[in-house]
C-alpha cells in the first residue's frame, strides 16, 4: 500500500512539474485530488487495509495530499510569477526616448546676477529699491559733489535730454534721492540701468547695469565699509578668495576705495583674465563725502556712511567667462538658454 501511495505522489509531483499552464495544473489537481481523483480513490481502499494499520495509512494519505497540495500551490505561484514576468516583459518601453517636456524659459543672466548680488545684501539688512533713469543734472552730478566743470564730468560720456536733464550715468543719484526721502539710518541697494555715451563694442555698451549700495547711520566707519564688502565678496565669490582695497577717487566719496578679489582662474598668479595682475577689480566704494550729506540736509558731524557701486555686466561676464558684452544685449536665444 505504501508503495502505491508513494508511486501516486511521485506521479502527481511529476504531473505538477510538467504542467506548463494554469489549465494543465488544474487538470493535474482534479486528476489527483478531485472527487474522482486518484488519491480519493486510494482513500476509498481504506477498507481493504488492516484495521490496525488504518491510522498509519490515513496519516500517510493525508501527508501525501498535503505534499501534493503544497506542490500545487508552489507551482501555481511560480507559474503566476512567470506569467507576470512575461507580461511585464512585453510591456517594456524605450526609456531612452525623450520625455514630454513642458518647455520653460530662462531669466536673463543680468537679472540673475542682480538677484544673486542683491540677495546677499538683503541678508545683511539692505532694502532693494529702484530709481529713475532719466535724471536731473542736480541728482546725477551736482548733489554728488560734482559741480559743473568738474574733471570727473566729461560731456562726451553723458547723454543729455536738455540742459537740466540727462540719462543717469550711474546709479549713485539714488543715494541722494533715498536720503532726501527718508530719515537715517539708511540701508539700500539700488540695481538699475545706467547710460554712457560709448559706442557699442566688445567692452563698451551705451546702456549697462549697476548696483549701488548705501549705508548711513551714526558712527559708520571705513572699517565697516571694509567688513561689509569683504563679507559680500566672500559670500559671492567664495571663502577662499582674497580681498583687497585700493585707494581711488570718486567725487562723492572720501576716502574712496576700489575693491579687488584674487583671480579665481589663476589663484593670484596672473593670467589673461586678470590681465596678469592676480587681482580682479570688482567694485568702487567709499565713505559718503560730507558735501553729499550736507546736500541732503544730513549733518556730517552726526552721521557718516559708506556707498558702493558695481557693474553687473562685468560680474556676469567674469562669472561665466565670456568677454564680449554685446552678447548680453543681442537676445540670441542660443545664448540666453545657457543661463
Amino acid at each position, binding site marked *: 500500500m505504501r508503495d502505491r501511495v508513494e508511486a501516486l505522489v511521485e506521479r502527481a509531483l511529476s504531473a505538477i512539474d510538467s504542467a506548463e499552464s494554469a489549465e494543465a495544473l488544474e487538470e493535474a489537481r482534479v486528476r489527483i485530488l478531485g472527487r474522482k481523483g486518484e488519491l480519493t480513490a486510494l482513500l476509498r481502499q481504506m477498507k481493504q487495509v488492516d484495521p490496525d494499520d488504518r491510522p498509519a495509512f490515513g496519516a500517510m494519505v493525508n501527508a501525501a495530499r498535503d505534499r501534493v497540495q503544497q506542490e500545487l500551490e508552489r507551482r501555481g505561484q511560480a507559474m503566476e510569477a512567470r506569467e507576470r514576468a512575461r507580461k511585464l516583459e512585453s510591456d517594456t518601453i524605450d526609456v531612452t526616448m525623450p520625455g*514630454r517636456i*513642458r518647455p520653460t*524659459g530662462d*531669466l*536673463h543672466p*543680468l*537679472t540673475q546676477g542682480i*538677484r544673486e548680488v*542683491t540677495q546677499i545684501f*538683503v541678508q545683511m*539688512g*539692505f*532694502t*532693494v*529699491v529702484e530709481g*529713475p*533713469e532719466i535724471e*536731473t543734472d*542736480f541728482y546725477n552730478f551736482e548733489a554728488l559733489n560734482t559741480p*559743473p566743470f*568738474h*574733471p570727473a564730468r566729461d560731456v562726451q560720456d553723458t*547723454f*543729455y*535730454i*536738455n540742459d*537740466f*536733464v540727462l*540719462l543717469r550715468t550711474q546709479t549713485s543719484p539714488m543715494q541722494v*534721492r533715498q536720503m532726501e526721502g527718508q530719515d537715517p*539710518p539708511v*540701508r539700500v541697494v539700488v540695481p538699475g*540701468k545706467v547710460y554712457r555715451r560709448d*559706442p557699442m563694442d566688445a567692452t563698451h555698451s*551705451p546702456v549697462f547695469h549697476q548696483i549701488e549700495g548705501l*549705508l548711513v*547711520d551714526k558712527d559708520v*566707519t*571705513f*572699517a*565697516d565699509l*571694509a*567688513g561689509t564688502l569683504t*563679507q559680500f565678496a566672500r559670500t559671492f565669490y567664495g571663502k577662499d578668495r582674497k580681498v583687497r*582695497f*585700493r*585707494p581711488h*577717487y570718486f567725487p562723492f566719496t*572720501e*576716502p574712496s576705495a576700489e575693491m579687488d578679489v584674487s583671480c579665481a582662474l589663476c589663484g593670484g598668479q596672473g593670467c589673461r583674465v586678470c590681465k596678469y595682475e592676480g587681482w580682479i577689480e570688482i567694485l568702487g566704494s567709499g*565713505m559718503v*563725502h*560730507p558735501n553729499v550729506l550736507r546736500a541732503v540736509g544730513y549733518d556730517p558731524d552726526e552721521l557718516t556712511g559708506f556707498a558702493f557701486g558695481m557693474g553687473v555686466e562685468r560680474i556676469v561676464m567674469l562669472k561665466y567667462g565670456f568677454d564680449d558684452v554685446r552678447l548680453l*544685449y*543681442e*537676445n*540670441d*536665444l*542660443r545664448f*540666453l538658454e545657457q543661463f
Partner: protein
Amino acid sequence: MRVPLRWLKDYVDIELEPEQLADALTMSGTKVEGIDRVGSGLRRVTAGRAVSVTPHPKSDRLRIVILDIGPRQAPRRVVTAAGNVAEGCIVPVVLAGGSLVDGEVIGEVEFEGVRSEGMLLSAKELGVSEDNSGILLLPDSVKPGDDIVASLGLRDDVLELEITPNRPDCLCMVGVARELAAITRKELRMPARGCPESLQPARDLTKIVIEAPDLCFRYGARVIRHVRPGQSPIWMQARLSAAGIRPISAVVDVTNYVMLELNQPLHAFDYSRVAQHTIVVRRAQAGERLVTLDGSERELNTDMLLIGDAEKALAVAGVMGGLASEITENTDTVLLESACFAQQSVWRTSRTLRLRTEASSRFEKGLDPASVPPALDRAASLLSRMGAGEACSGIVDVYPSPEAPAVIETTDRWIERRLGAGLGADEIADCLTRLGFRVDTQGTPDGSAKIAVTVPSFRGDVREPIDLVEEVARIWGYNEVPATIPQGTDSGGYSDEYAFCEQVRQALAGAGGSEALTFPFMSETDFDMLGFAPDDPKREAIRVANPLVEEQSLMRTTMYPAMLAALKTNVNRRRRGVFLYEIGRTYAPTGAITAGIEPARGETPAVERPVLAGVMCGAGEGGTWYAPERQYDFYDAKGAIEGLCACLHIDGVTFSRAECPPFHPGRAAAIVWDGVRLGTVGQVHPLVAGSYQVPEATMLFEVDMALLMEAAQSPREYAPLPKYPAVERDVAMVLERDVASADVERTIRTAGGALVESVRLFDVYEGPQVGEGRRSLAFSITYQAADRTLTDAEVNQVHDAVRAALAQKLGAVLR
C-alpha cells in the same frame, strides 16, 4: 601717464624691482596699469665710427661704410642707402643677428654683390623718435663700441599710470617721485634749476599785463636769447619718446620735458613776433580770430581767455599757441611763458573749440601757481646746459593775489573715528609729513591731540579734514584697517515693485518665455513703421540731445520695436520658435521736460512706467514624437497672459477685440481688468511685419506693470471646499461666426445662475458641415450647489434654461 623708470630715478632712489614698485604705487592710490618694456627689442646694437665711406660699385643709391666698432673688434662693412653719413661720423649700428626696437631681426645681406654685416640705424629704428629721414648721428662723446642702448637710455621700463582727476600733481615725474618717496621713506630730489644768466634783465625786455585776473592767476615769463635751432640731445629725445611725447626741436622739447617733469605747461613765443614785446592776458573779443599751431583758423568768443600782444591775439590761453608767433629755425630770442589759468576757463574753451592738448588737459584739472617760476628756471637751466640758449636775468612774474597756504584743523580722535582704527597722533603726523604736509600736533587735556595741517600748494584737492583721512589711510595702508560689521538690526528686503517684477519674470519663464534685455531707445521712424497715427500720444517721446545713432535718438514710448528687433535677430539666425519677454520701462515727458525748464528738486523728470512686453513667433510646440509641430498663434500669446494672471491669482480678466497699431485689426485684444485696460495682445499687422522684416505670424503683447500689480493685490479669500458632487453637461451649438465665445460663456453663466460652477469651451468647428459664415461651439458646463446634491431634475431644468437662453439671445442652433 607714462613714467620711464630711469627718468623717475633722477628724483628718488628706487631699490624695488619694477613689479614691486608698481604694486606699492597701486596700493597707495596711483594705479599702475602696466609696465611697458621699451627698447627690449634692441639686440647687438653698438656705436661705430665711419672709417671710410665709398660708393657702391654697382649702385648709385648705395654706399659702403667701413665701421670701427671699438678695440678688440674687427671693423665691419655695412651697406647703407642713407646719404647723411660721412667719414668720421659716429653712428648707431645693429650687427648681423641683432634686432631693431620693433624686434625685427637683421641678418647678413648681400646688396648687389657686397655683403653687409649689419645695418646703420635711424632714430626711429632705435626708438629715440619718429625721425626716419636718415641715420642718427651720435655726438662725438660717444666712442666706438659703446653700449649706447644703456648710455642713451634706450631701454627702459615705463610705468603706465592711471592718474585720477583729483591728482593733477601726479601728472609729472616729480609728482610720482613724491608719492614714491612718501611710500618708501626716501628723500625727494628736486631737479636743478640754476643757470648762468646774462646781465640784461628780462623785465627790461618784456612787459606783462593781466587784464583778466579771474581767469589767469599768475603769469611768468623768461627771455632766452640766441636759441639754437635743431634737435635736443638724444637722451632727452629718448625720454620724451618713452613718455609718449614726440621730439620736435631743442626748445620745444625742453618745454615738453619741463611739463612732464613739473606738470607746468610752458609755451615758447618768438620774441620778435610779440608786438611791443608786451604780453596782454585778456578775454577774446567777440568774433576775434586766430590761426593756431595746427594751421586751423579759430573763431574765439568773449568767454575765452587769450594771450595777446599790444596789437593782436597770440595764443589761446592754456590750449594752443598761434601759428604767427611760433618759433622757427630763424628764431633768435624766445619769450617763454609759464602761467596758471583758471581750470574751468580752459575746460570750456577746449571743449568749445574741440581742441584738446597736453597743456589743456593739465590746466583743466587745476594747476599749482607755485610752480610757475621753478618751471621757467628749470627750462632756462636745461637750455643753457644743452647750449641751446642764454637766459636773460630774472623772471617777469605777475601774481595779482597770491593765496596763503590752506590750514586744516582736526583731531586724532576725529580721524580715528572715521577710519574705525586707532592709529594714534604720531602715526597720523608721520603719514602726512611724508606726503609733504606740515603737521603741528598739540595735546589736549582729554588726551586727544589737536592737529593743524598745512597743505602744500600742489595739493589743491585736500580741502577739509575728511581729505586728510584718505591721505593718512592710503599711506598707512587701506588693508591695515580692520574689517567690522556695522551695527543695526533692520531686516532687509525687496520693494513691492521689485518683488512683483521677479514674480512675473518667474511666471513667464515657467510658461516658456525667455527673458530679453533691450536698450530703452527707439527712433522716430519706428512710429511710422508701427503704423501709429500722426496724433498718437505715443509719438510724444523724450528726445536724446546727443544720441550716438539716429536709431537710439528717442527714449522709447513702447517696447514693440525692441521686441521685434530681438525676434528678427533670432529669425535671422534660423531659430525655429521664439518666445521672448522683457520687463522694461517706457518713458514719457513731464511738463518740465516739455517746457525745457529745470525739474523741481525731489521730482522725477520723466514718467517712467515699467512695462511687460513679449513676442512669440514660429514653432510654438510639438515637432516631437508625441505631438506634431504647431506654430504660435494668437491664442498662445493670449494664453501666456491668462496663465500669468492665473499664476498671480488675478481673477476676472477679460479680452475684447481691439483695433490699434501695431496689430492686425481682426487679431488683437485689449486686456481688461475691472474696467481698466492693462494692455494689449495680438498678431502684428502684416505691414508692420513687413517693415520689421519678421514673419506675419508674429504675436506681441504689452502689459502695464503698475496696473497689473494693482490687479494682483486684490485680496484673496478662502472659499470652503465643495461638499456635494458636481454634474457635467455639454452643450453644442451652431452660431454666426461673429458671435464671440465670451458672449456665449456670459450667456451661459447668466442663464445658469449660481449653479454654474465653471464653463469650458472644448470644441470649435468651422467648415462645410455648419455652413458659410457660421461655426460650431461646444461647451462643457459644470453645475454644482454648495448646500445639496443636485438632482437630475434640477440640473435638467437649469440646463434647459441655458439652452433656451442661447437660442433666444444669440440665435444659437442647438445640436
